[in-house]
Each structure stands twice: as C-alpha cells, then as structure tokens.
C-alpha cells in the first residue's frame, strides 16, 4: 500500500529560499521511493486553501511543514498562516515535522492535545550560518550545508518509517557529529566556529511532543 506524504515549502524570501533548498533532498528521496506518494505544495501552492484541500484529499500520514512560524503558527506562501490552533485538528492522527521557528513550543503541544500523533520541531528559532556572497543561490552556500544535512537526516528517517523518538535521537547524533567536525576544523574566515554554535543552538531546541513510537 502506497503511503501518503505531504510537504509544504514556500519560497518567497531569503529565509524560505534556504529552507526550500534544505527540503530538496527530502523531496527527491520521497520521489525515488515507489512506496510513497508525495503531495508537494511548493512555492505559491503553499496556501491555506490548497493545504486544507490536500489534507482532505490525500489523507497523508506524514506532513512536513517548511516556512516561517512562531509559537502559534506555521506559515505558507507570503506569510499566510496554514496551521494554527484553529485548524490543527485537521492533522489528527498524523506525524508532523515542522521546520519553522518556535512552533513546537505551543502549537506542537496543542496539536498533540488535538490528536496529532507526534509533532517534531523546534522550541526556538531555527538558525543557520550563511555565506553572504551565496544568499541568492542557497544550494551553493557551503556554510548552510551542515544545516541542510541535519534536515535531510531527520526527514529521511521519518520518511523511511523510523519512529519519531528514534528519528530525533539519530538527528541529535548527527548534530553532535557535525559540531565536532566544525568545532575542530581550521577556518581562516572564522565561519566554522559560528557554524558549530548555530548547530549547537538547533540541537538544544530540537524536540517533539506526542508518541515517540509513532512511525510512517
């Protein structure tokens, strides 16, 4: 039986351009897997209306939300709220991974109270380091590469059916491996220690609410 997966990935400003770039490997992995059907709400398709339609039509078991956020909302295209406490009930029974600032702090907890199986996300702002000369081409920004890597590790684990709790554990291991790499490397431009600090920040605030055994 084909498993249904839905992803939102707006791309309209500097931050969403990076997060969109981070999502590309996950989308490619899902497309390569014959056992997975992906509904990809990319760019301008990441709207409240299209999201609710897609949730009702494809009934995905796994949902990745990429975009701006805060404690109470995850946004789609042009800062349009697509998940709030008012519609989070739509996600009942699903596993959610939100690459959006702070949403685990409140929205994730509310989501679980309203029946979401597991909500993986960040309690604080998600941070990464940029190369100012590469901001128009995030795919080529080497400073952002380790952050793309951890997003892929988390996404691929969830996609391949690893339970939420174990996926978090494996992602934390990857964060630590990368921190060790960057924290001990020579870098004449001084960016490696800052990358280590940002990875450490994200490691501190990655977490989940709900059932740690929930799996896709």
């Amino acid at each position, binding site marked *: 039986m084909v498993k249904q997966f839905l992803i939102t990935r707006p791309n309209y*400003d*500097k*931050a969403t351009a*990076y*997060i969109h770039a981070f999502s590309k490997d996950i989308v490619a992995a899902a497309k390569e897997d014959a056992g997975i059907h992906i509904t990809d709400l990319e760019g301008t398709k990441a709207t409240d209306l299209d999201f609710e339609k897609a949730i009702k039509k494809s009934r995905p078991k796994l949902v990745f939300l990429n975009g*701006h*956020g*805060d404690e109470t909302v995850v946004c789609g295209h042009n800062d349009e709220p697509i998940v709030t406490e008012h519609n989070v009930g739509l996600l009942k029974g699903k596993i959610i991974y939100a*690459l*959006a*600032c702070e949403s685990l702090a409140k929205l994730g907890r509310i989501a679980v109270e309203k029946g979401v199986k597991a909500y993986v996300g960040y309690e*604080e*702002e*998600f*941070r*990464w*380091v*940029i190369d*100012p000369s590469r901001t128009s081409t995030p795919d080529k920004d080497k400073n952002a590469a380790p952050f793309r890597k951890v997003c892929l590790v988390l996404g691929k684990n969830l996609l391949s059916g690893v339970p939420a709790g174990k996926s978090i554990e494996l992602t934390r291991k990857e964060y*630590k491996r990368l*921190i*060790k790499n960057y*924290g*001990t490397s020579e870098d004449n*431009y*001084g*960016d490696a*220690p*800052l990358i*280590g*600090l*940002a*990875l*450490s*920040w994200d*490691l*501190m605030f990655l977490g989940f609410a709900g059932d740690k055994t929930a799996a896709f």
Partner: protein
Amino acid sequence: MSLYEEQKKLVLARLRTLNPEAKMMSGKNKAVSVKELIKHVEEDDIFGKKIVEAQIKMLQVLTGVN
C-alpha cells in the same frame, strides 16, 4: 564569580576570536552578526543568555561531556 559569570566570560572570549561580520541567519529572516551576538551576551538579555547556553553545549559536545 558565579558559574554563569565564568561561562559568560569564556563565551565572550571565544566569540571575540570570530569574524565580527560573520552572520547567523534565522527562520524569522533576522540575520545576527557575531558583533551583535557579543552585544547580546554582554548585555545579558534573554537571547544573550541562550547564546551562552548554546556555546557551553557546543563545548560539552566537543569535550565529550554531552
């Protein structure tokens, strides 16, 4: 000197070795430079305290404590 004050001193010493113009981006579209990070830590605001915590966490990972 409290443990936190000692940690803060250590973190400031490390941050001052970095390129002051290097920037950390956030999902809220707010880029913060190393120079600004130092200011937050010096001023001991909420963000500065979290930066101290993150830098200490990094040192713990590097030394195998955590």
